């Protein structure tokens, strides 16, 4: 069913390393270029040999299990910690200690916890950060940021009085204050209830419409599938990178699911001779056929089943979610470690 590939996978049409990657992986300006980046804390490796590029206006999902090195990567690119080796260009500026303040002035980083001053109002929190970025037109910028997260009417509220979801929105407004060239969101929906999570999704989707470049770390796969143009899966090393549909195609062979009222008397005779069918297996409610082209295989399959007197409940191409891709890769890693 699957094609095990232990090394980093690079999906068709996507570029793992490119100084000039754009939304679709084609040539153009890059918001982020990371090459062979590694971070070690003593003997412990946080992440190793990570390379990718993110185009301006792209929403790039950075997935991985807990401890995979996602947050450490974000902190490195946000100049909060220094890499052990490798290079990166962040918002057009080479990553090094000297360029830290210049890079930080062009990006925003929203950590997993909102990190608001709870005894200060929303407005006071934003005023403080506007000062830290030395922004002009503070009033206008704060108004625009609050409007972007639908919080104009809560500006005078103490942050300590806000719900978790509202605090996350304030943190997002704070991250938007300086019109960042790259916005790093580290697990933005962590700990939020479904309603607040949906609100954050909508906000990120609206930022995507505005062309904001977002680097989104998450372990919520539906979040990445819904919001991201491309995703990378990290498990200390970068395991895979590309568009979600490309990753599915690359990792899973195409197949057709057939549901029948009753099993076939001689499935080998019916399914084994069909053109374009490379293999099949029986499932609880029918059969799954590995095919080269589902559109060509499905009509012939239907005819063969009718001819064999089967009662067909459904015939459909198998849909693999990003979660299937993710679990497949992480399972590979677990198996490789146990060997």
């Amino acid at each position, binding site marked *: 069913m699957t094609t095990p590939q232990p090394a980093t996978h690079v999906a068709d049409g996507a570029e793992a390393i490119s100084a000039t990657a754009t939304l679709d992986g084609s040539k153009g300006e890059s918001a982020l270029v990371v090459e062979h980046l590694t971070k070690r*804390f*003593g003997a412990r490796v946080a992440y190793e040999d990570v390379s990718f590029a993110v185009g301006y206006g792209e929403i790039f999902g950075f997935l991985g299990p807990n401890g995979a090195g996602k947050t*450490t990567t974000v*902190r490195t690119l*946000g100049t*909060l*910690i*220094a890499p052990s080796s490798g290079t990166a260009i962040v918002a057009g500026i080479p990553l090094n200690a000297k360029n830290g*303040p*210049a890079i*930080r*002035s062009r990006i*925003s*980083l*929203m*950590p997993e*916890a*909102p*990190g*608001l*001053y*709870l*005894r*200060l109002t929303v407005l*006071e929190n934003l*005023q*403080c*950060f*506007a*000062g*830290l*970025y*030395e922004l002009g037109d503070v009033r206008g910028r704060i108004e625009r940021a609050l409007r972007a997260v639908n919080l104009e009417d809560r500006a005078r509220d103490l942050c300590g009085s806000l719900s978790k979801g509202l605090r996350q929105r304030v*943190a997002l407004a*704070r991250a938007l204050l300086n019109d960042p060239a790259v916005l790093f969101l580290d697990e933005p929906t962590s700990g939020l209830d479904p309603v607040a999570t949906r609100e954050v999704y909508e906000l990120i989707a609206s930022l995507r419409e505005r062309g904001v470049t977002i680097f989104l770390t998450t372990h919520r796969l539906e979040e990445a599938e819904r919001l991201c143009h491309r995703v990378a899966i990290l498990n200390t090393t970068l395991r895979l990178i590309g568009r979600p549909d490309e990753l599915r195609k690359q990792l899973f062979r195409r197949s057709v699911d057939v549901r029948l009222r009753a099993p076939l008397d001689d499935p080998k005779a019916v399914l084994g001779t069909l053109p374009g069918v490379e293999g099949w297996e029986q499932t609880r409610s029918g059969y799954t056929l590995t095919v080269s082209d589902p559109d060509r295989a499905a009509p012939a399959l239907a005819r063969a089943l009718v001819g064999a007197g089967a009662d067909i409940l459904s015939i459909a191409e198998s849909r693999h979610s990003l979660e299937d891709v993710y679990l497949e890769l992480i399972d590979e890693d677990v198996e490789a470690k146990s060997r």
Partner: protein
Amino acid sequence: MRFSWTRVGAILRKELRDYRRNRFVIVTMTMVPVAFIIAPMIQLFVANATADTAHLNTRIGLSLLYMLVIPAIVPSTLSAYSVVGEREQGTLEPVLATPIHREELLIGKALAAFVPALVIAYMVFGIFLAAAALFAHPVIASAIYAGPHVLVQLLFTPLLAGWAIWVGIAVSARSTDVRVAQQLGALASLPPLAILALMSLNVITESTALAIGLAAALLAFDLLAWRVVAAVFDRERLVTGTRR
């Protein structure tokens, strides 16, 4: 990028707003001065005005020493909280992710502890001097106003506050627990008072020249402490809890 007073001001304003709404800070800033002015006030009225000059000077010196604890203790609790407290609350990382330089952050934090400490300490000393002038025996009042007492108080108040602040921030930047940081910060702020205690007890003869000399030495220590704090302030360690 250049040093920015705008960023220092942003930190300073934020800290002062935060203090104003923090009951613990308000109580500390109120109770410490009250506690340390009671004994000097009592001394004003119970001191024997007919005692010899040396004895009177010792009594007055001890009273004034009490009040010098204020600039040492008030900012030490604030500064000891300043880094580790933000780290515990999760507010440090967003600040460190802005273009702020460590020197700007440290000076903003230091000023936020220094300004209220200085205002409170001078205000308490002003009240003491006014009470002495208005209500104390003239001999005692003139003993307070004569000699280097007032100069010592005026000179050492900001210098002791400065020492307490830098030591407090250093402890805070290396600590992982707010309570431990505050206890260590308060303890570490006290050693400079030992010299003043020796002067107050007449073990070291108090003089204007000695006061200025010691103040210059303490100023040098303050500047050295600032450089050390700036050097030990490690962004990576503060964010990850581990060293490079």
